[in-house]
Each structure stands twice: as C-alpha cells, then as structure tokens.
C-alpha cells in the first residue's frame, strides 16, 4: 500500500505509518495534523453549538450544546469531509467521461451527516443506508481506490466490482441499498440482533425524505418500538426525493415526528458537530433500553438526485448557491477550526490540496486496474459449496458447472 504522506517535514513518512497503525480505526486519509502547526493536538477544544441545533419531539432531555472535542478529532472530521467532497467530484468527472456507467448518486453537500455520525459511534455500532452511500463507505474504512474501482466495476472494487455505486459495503456498514426504503426493516433486524446478543451497540438505519412514506418504514417503526430495539432511524432530509420536494410528497414534513409514538430529534445536518452530538445522544438513549429514536438530519445536496439528473429542473440555481454559500459543511467546519485556533486557513488549504492529490492518485490506480475475472459472474449467488451442480446459461449448451 503506497503511503500518501508527503509533506515538507522529513520524518512524516515514518510517523504516518506509526500513527495510523496505532489508531483504532484505519484512517484512509493522510494524517491531517501533520499539516498544522497546532501544538498538542490531543487537547480539547470547547465549542458551544447554536441554540437552534436541535428540536425535540416527545422527549424532555435534549443533547448538551456544549462539546469538548480534541483538535485531532476536529481536524480528522474536516479532512474526511474534504476528501469525501473531492472523491464525489472526481466520481462526477469520471461519470461524465463515461468511465463510470450505470447510476451514480453523489452526496456532495451531505458530508456532515456521515462524518459526524462516524465520529460519534463505535466499531460495534452498525450503519445501513440507501444508495447515496459512497461517503458512508469511505468513513467506514473503504479506501478511495476501492470505492472508485467499484464505481467502474473493476476487480478490486469494494464489492469485487459486482455491486457498483449503490452496493458498497464495509465492516459494520450494511450498504448501499438500491430499493428505496427496503433498508429500514433490515436495519431494525440488525438492531434486534444487537439487543439479542446483549451488545451495548446501536444501529443507525438511514433513509431519505422520499423513502419516509414507504409502508415498510412504518412497519419497522412499530417493531422497533414494540420490542424496544436499539435502532436509530435517521431521516436524511435533503428536501428532495429525486425531483419531488418534501412538501409535495409528504403530508407531514416534520420527519422527526413521523415515528408518532417514537421520540424524535431534529438536527442541523449541515453541521458535522451537531450531527456528532446528536448521534452520541441517540446512541446513549437507545442502548440504555429506551427503545428506538427517530432522527431527522436537515441537509442538502448540491448535485442532482443522480448523475442523470441535472438537479436544476425542480429547484433554482439561486437556492443551491444560497445553501452552498451559507451552510456548506466544509466551510462551517473550516470557520470553526480557524476560530478555535486549531488550524490556519493556509494549513486547511494544504489539507485540501493533499486530499485532492490523494484522490487523483486513487483515480489513476483505479483506472489502471482491470475488469473482474469472468468467474465472478457465477460466484456468490449461493454460498460456496452449496450451489446446484449446474447453472444454465443462455442456450442449452452454455452452462456453468460448479463441480
């Protein structure tokens, strides 16, 4: 694995290897604090979130607005978000160059949700989401190369090139699901297992504002509440279900109240720290045997629903620009870091540049890779060893014999 740590400091290459191997979860970015002159990165910074960060439903408690978080963690959150942004923009370019085919749903603008959530949870916690999953895959340890290769359908893709954009999986991350809403009952089942096994862990089952009207979502709500499962239902409300605005699709757009008998919390999904605090709160709440929680992250996507959608036929460019300039998650985190003396603007720019370099390198690697072996076509349909002797192909003489 090529080390991507290249900075002006001479000892960094060695340090990179040591620091990343010592961390609990493998970082798939270069070590960001090597770019800053901040001393004592393990020191905590005290941040107070704005009053309107959370709105509660049927719950007296609310998350503490005061956060004490280490500079290291803040920088890591910023680096992850900027790398994710670069990765999605690269995928955008690759799709337009027809290197990626099929469907490609980008999470540009929604980075704060995945990064904030990941910072708050542990290895035992599980996450499941729908098809806008590249960012989630990345924070759960998927390397950029493996994600880009999966998008191109190459052999070293994270799903061996067989899943594509919508079906990426990683440890404790159950994808990556194409059918809208189908992942919510799945998440409920995963939460059931955690409770059954007595694990102090929660499952975050994400879905969008469009999916919130699926019948199976309400079926999942009922089961989770009935059996007090440690399941956090996260509605990633980016205001549009493909081309339909939330107001035109939903009788109630207060998605955090849709759990009815399940308490809810509405979070500013453009602030990684707000999401971080809310996820910590949610995990604690559900794992303590209180049952499920519904969380609505109010976020926004700059791009269209997918690469086939320009994203401007159902909303104005002014709206996109307005959100981009006033609520961008990266800019928000940047301001925070500068304000609290964690890094200077120049240092953050250096991190951006490094991220860009890394993603470009990953793109080159991904392009150089090859298509999967033909044998992958008929593997993993059934568990190995239990397949029928033959599967039939297009014509009688064309079959594959497993044994």
């Amino acid at each position: 694995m090529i080390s991507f740590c290249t900075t002006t400091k001479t000892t960094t290459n060695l340090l990179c290897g040591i620091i990343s191997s010592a961390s609990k979860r493998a970082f798939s970015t270069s070590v960001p604090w090597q770019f800053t002159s901040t001393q004592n990165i393990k020191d905590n910074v005290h941040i107070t979130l704005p009053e309107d960060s959370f709105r509660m439903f049927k719950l007296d408690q609310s998350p503490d607005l005061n956060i004490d978080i280490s500079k290291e963690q803040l920088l890591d959150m910023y680096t992850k978000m900027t790398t994710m942004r670069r990765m999605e923009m690269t995928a955008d370019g690759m799709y337009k160059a027809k290197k990626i085919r099929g469907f490609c749903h980008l999470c540009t603008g929604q980075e704060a949700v995945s990064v904030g959530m990941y910072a708050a949870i542990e290895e035992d916690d599980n996450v499941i989401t729908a098809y806008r999953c590249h960012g989630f895959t990345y924070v759960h340890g998927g390397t950029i190369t493996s994600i880009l290769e999966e998008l191109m359908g190459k052999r070293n893709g994270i799903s061996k090139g067989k899943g594509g954009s919508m079906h990426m999986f990683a440890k404790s991350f159950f994808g990556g699901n194409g059918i809208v809403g189908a992942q919510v009952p799945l998440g409920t089942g995963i939460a059931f297992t955690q409770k059954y096994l007595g694990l102090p862990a929660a499952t975050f089952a994400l879905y969008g504002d469009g999916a919130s009207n699926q019948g199976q979502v309400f079926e999942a709500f009922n089961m989770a509440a009935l059996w007090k499962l440690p399941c956090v239902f996260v509605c990633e409300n980016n205001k549009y279900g493909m081309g339909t605005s939330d107001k035109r699709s939903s009788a109630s757009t207060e998605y955090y109240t849709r759990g009815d008998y399940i308490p809810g919390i509405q979070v500013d999904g453009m602030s990684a720290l707000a999401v971080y605090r809310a996820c910590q709160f949610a995990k604690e709440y559900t794992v303590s045997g209180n049952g499920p929680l519904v969380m609505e992250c109010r976020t926004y996507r700059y791009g269209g629903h997918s690469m086939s959608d320009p994203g401007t036929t159902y909303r104005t460019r002014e709206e996109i620009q307005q959100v981009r300039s006033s609520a961008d998650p990266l800019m928000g985190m940047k301001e925070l870091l500068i304000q609290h003396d964690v890094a200077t603007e120049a240092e953050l720019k250096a991190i951006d540049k490094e991220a860009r370099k890394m993603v470009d390198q990953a793109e080159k690697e991904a392009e150089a890779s090859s298509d999967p072996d033909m044998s992958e076509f008929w593997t993993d349909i059934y568990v190995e060893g239990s397949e029928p002797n033959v599967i039939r192909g297009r014509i009688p003489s064309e079959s594959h014999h497993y044994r």
Partner: protein
Amino acid sequence: MSIISKVARRSISIRVSQQKRGYAAGTAQPQDGIQQGVAYSHLLKRGPEDALRNPELAHISAVNGETTKMNLFQAVNDAMSIALATDDNAVVFGEDVSFGGVFRATTGLAEKFGKDRVFNTPLTEQGIAGFAIGMAAVGHTAIAEIQFADYIFPAFDQLVNEAAKYRYRSGNQFNVGGLTVRAPCSAVGHGGHYHSQSPEAFFAHCPGLKIVSPRSPIQAKGLLLASIRDRNPVIFFEPKNLYRAAVEEVPVADYELPLGKAEVLKKGSDVTIVGYGAQMYTLENAIQLAEKKMPGLSCELIDLRTIVPWDVDTVVESVNKTGRLVIAHEAPKSSGMGAEIASTIMERCFLRLEAPIQRVCGWDTPFPLIFEKFYMPSMIRCFDAIKTSVNY
C-alpha cells in the same frame, strides 16, 4: 454530451478492425455484414404506407390515414392522451408523472387534462397499486405507473392477491377491469440489478392478470389503448431501451390492437422463433445471420405481444408447420416464460417436433452490471440456438 458525434462514431467503428472478443460484440460494429440494433431494423414501419399496410390497422386508413413520426414514449403518451380524452373517468398517476415522468411518457398530460387527472404519488409502490385497485373497483380507469419494473415488488401482493382475484372472489359483484399498470422493463445497457429486470414471469404465474409487452411505437399505442380498455387488470411492460430507439410512423387515430393475439412478423418454413419486447430486434438479427450462414434456411418469427394469455394457437400452428421452436427472452431461464411455452408446445406438438425446443434466455444469476454483455441472450446466442435446432 458526447465528444464524438453519432455519425462520426459510426464511421470510426466501421474503419476500426474487428477485435476478437470472448462474448457477443456490441451493436456498433456490423458483424458478418449484419447491421445490429433497433436503428437498422426492418421490423419498424418508417413510412406511412408501410404502417397502414398492416391488416390489423386496415380499418383506420379509411377513416383517418394520417400518421406522424413517433418514438415509443411518444406513442405511449399519445395512447394515454386518447384514453384520457375519450374516458372521463380515466386518471394517470405514479411517481413523477406530473412533469412528464422519468422517461417522458407522461409529458404534457397534466397540462392538457388537469392536475386532478394526472398527478404524482409519493414514493410508495404498494400504496400506488392498492390505491389504483381501489379506484378501479369503483369503476374508474386507473392508469398507474411504476417507475421501473424492478420496483414493482412492493406492489406484488396488491396485484396478485387483490387485483387478480377481485372479480373471482366477489362472484363478479366487483372487478378491477379499469386497472392498468405500466412499467418500463428490460435491459438498457447499464442498468445493473435494479434497472434492468424483466419480471413478467412472476406475474404470469398468477391467474386473473394480463401481461402485455410491445415491440414498437405502433404496437405500443394500439396495445396500450387495448389494455386500458380491456375489462381485466393488465400489466403493461414497456422495454425502456426502445423508448427513444424505436421510431415509426404511427397513425394518429384512435386504434386498438388485439390482446391475446401474437403477430407473425416473418413467414418461414424451417424453424419457428418466438419472443417479445426488445428481444424481437435481437431475434431479427439472429435470423438474418442464420439465413446468411445457412442458405436456403427459412425462419418464421413470431412476436407474442400478449405474454399472458399468450396466443397458443398461432404458435402451435407454426410449430406444426416447421417442427422446430426457439424461444428467447431476457429474463432468467429457470421458470421463465420460455419454460411455459416449451411445455405447452411439447404437449400440443410432440409428434411434429423435429428437435428439442431451444430456449435462449438470461443466465440464472442476478442481473449483472459489469457482465451484462455476457448475460444477455445476444444475436450470436440466438443464432447458436437456431443452428442447433436446425442441425439436430
């Protein structure tokens, strides 16, 4: 936006030497002199006289022989427009249909007929189907759209357990004859698992439903109008690959084509070839290749059009004449429509068969993304089956 224009690309591909590939080549390069694909098909009626020469359309040329150039989504649009205009109780609904739909099939309908007759539903297939069944039960003509056939499964229970059994279980007190469910189906080249499926076999197994799949714009308009007006619940699968690719001179009049009747597209004497939907063009090319490689061979091509109830008599008559049958469809082989047709023909034509019935279908795997070209029952595979059947 492609950098190279379509015209330039075609000329480049002809100049490029033929590469050796392990699977059937794409449609760009002419193989053995066969121009593959919908664009070169002779099955499409590109001239007005051509279109009206059809015996099934003979009655309209006297009344109004005007035709206009339409592709498949425009033909579907025209059919729905006529349905809405002639039936006050007709409504069209589904996800995103108001602005025109993801395939433009419902363009202009909301503007023309009003938002109370052409409206969007939330993202709920089960809800859409149930809602449509309810409307149809009271006598409305409900034309529901499921955005992709791959998403029809949440609605499976509603269609199989409610729609299909409505008339039977109420002793004909109630029925959902006014129900038509439209869904784009089949492969599109890059659809992967959930934008390429052909689920007709799942529904074919359910008595009470009718399933129709057109191959061209003229067929689509006539069959859709017939489906809407047929007093049974009908599922209308539109091959999405053909929405733009298939262009014909479509009669502007209000016309229907018969359900339950297959169409013999090419008469022959040596082997019967049966298919439906987009597969017809692949079969056309396979026949061209077969007749070129085996001079003297004469193939008969039949388009089922209605998958359930399929026209048994036409196929039986043909197989009794030729003694050989090849069936092709994109859906996986096991328990696909091919299995049903093969069994029935075996029962009816056993002594007349000269060779085992050949089925050219998709592999028994999930519909792949990167391996699509290998999965599809391509021209070469269909030709292979014809050859096997003829040389048996």
